């Protein structure tokens, strides 16, 4: 027991600090990717619902392909091929090759994947808004941007939150996939700690607990947000 505590202590020779740095990187990537996914999702949903035929077709290709290919394959493909492509373009245009940071690449790759799922979540949520509310906003002279900001986004939020909460939790765990491209996040940190100390069970259990805690804290925050988003809606309990 004393050995376990020593191994997990946040200061060397314990490896707790390493795990926490890994967790921090995981959260950074998850938050960035989720945020990027939200932006892609809103644009994607708008494009799918209101865009012209070309926009709709392009978005259909995007969401279908991303959702059809395993995420690990997409990550390998986008991470290696993507950075390579950018550097080839830069060289061709006469610039220096750049070293793309793991963090930026990770956020871009996972965000691109999240965007496809987010697009569908948002599309469903926008469709769930009573159309009369959108129509009323138009009838009172709201511009499309104002309508999106003041009516569509807040009105669709209660319908989007369950799906978006799923996406956030998936994002936190998908960061583990970035271990295969050598990004130092929680899973890679755990593997390193376990490999050096040979205490596999201890470290992987600890990582499991950390992922669980992350989920629990997320649920708490999501619950708060959902309560706020559903402020105009009577509780379902009363309708039983």
């Amino acid at each position, binding site marked *: 027991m004393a050995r376990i505590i020593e191994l997990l202590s946040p200061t060397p020779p314990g490896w707790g600090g390493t795990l926490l740095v890994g967790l921090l990187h995981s959260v950074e990537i998850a938050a960035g990717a989720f945020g990027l996914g939200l932006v892609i999702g809103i644009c994607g949903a708008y494009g799918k619902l209101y865009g012209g035929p070309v926009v709709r077709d392009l978005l259909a290709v995007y969401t279908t392909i991303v959702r059809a290919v395993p995420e690990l394959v997409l990550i390998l493909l986008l991470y290696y091929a993507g950075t390579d492509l950018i550097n080839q373009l830069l060289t061709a245009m006469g610039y220096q090759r750049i070293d793309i940071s793991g963090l930026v690449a990770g956020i871009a790759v996972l965000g691109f994947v999240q965007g496809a799922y987010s697009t569908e979540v948002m599309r469903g949520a926008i469709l769930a808004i*009573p159309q009369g*509310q959108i129509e009323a906003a*138009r009838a009172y002279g709201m511009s499309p941007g104002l309508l999106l900001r003041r009516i569509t986004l807040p009105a669709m939020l209660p319908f989007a939150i369950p799906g978006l909460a799923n996406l956030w939790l998936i994002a936190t765990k998908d960061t583990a996939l970035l271990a295969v491209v050598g990004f130092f996040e929680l899973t890679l940190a755990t593997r390193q700690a376990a490999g050096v100390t040979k205490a596999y069970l201890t470290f992987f259990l600890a990582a499991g607990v950390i992922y669980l805690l992350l989920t629990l804290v997320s649920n708490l925050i999501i619950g708060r947000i959902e309560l706020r988003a559903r402020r105009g809606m009577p509780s379902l309990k009363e309708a039983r």
Partner: protein
Amino acid sequence: MIAQGTAPALKYTAQNDAAEAIHVENLHKRFGELHVLKGVSLSARDGEVIAIIGGSGSGKSTLLRCINCLENPTSGIVRVNGEEIRMKADSHGHTVPADRKQIERIRSKLGMVFQNFNLWSHMTLIENVIEVPVHVLGVKRDVAIAEAEKLLARVGLAEKRDVYPAYLSGGQQQRAAIARALAINPRVMLFDEPTSALDPELIGEVLKVIGDLAREGRTMVLVTHEMKFAREVATHVVYLYNGLVEEEGPPEQIFGAPKSERLKQFIRNIG
């Protein structure tokens, strides 16, 4: 006043020299194969209350919704406040407003009240009422709130200002929706069957609010099934049948001495 196709202007026009708030001329609306409006004309001068009546599918709601381009007319002229809404054909051959800014400006002068209230569910009543003044018309928030409180008091909802629409009865929601329309100080109020979605015992409270507005000289166009109410408050009644104006005139004439057989039958059936 309403004229069908090229019918001569009615005497009603001649009696009234107030400015024309709404002018609709030879309006057509097609939904694909369906020809809903087949050349309808209509005008509302300041202070007039125009009631549009007609059976289901006669095109009365579509006519109202063409005035603020919630439906885009296929052809014809719509003028609000003397300003003609410019239309153009889009890439699919549909007629759409040519200038988004123009249509938004015109819409912000028309207070529309819907059959299903359409209050914004994520906002309290006071937030619903100040939303358009603050965010579309640029009124200062505290000024808008003071005005909104007066309007809510006027429709009998002062103490409900911080309640969300879902917690209110249909009659209360519709009265709040009327306050929302009044908050923009509209040039014309458009009512699209404002009592059709209400329980019978709630209709009275909404009609009373609308009736008060009519009596104080608000210009309105009102699509309704409440014939008794139309007779009381309207200055001019238009009977639509199958996308055309079948008969129109002052309420005493329309309800007291209808000429058209269809109108006679309509009044018998609904009365």
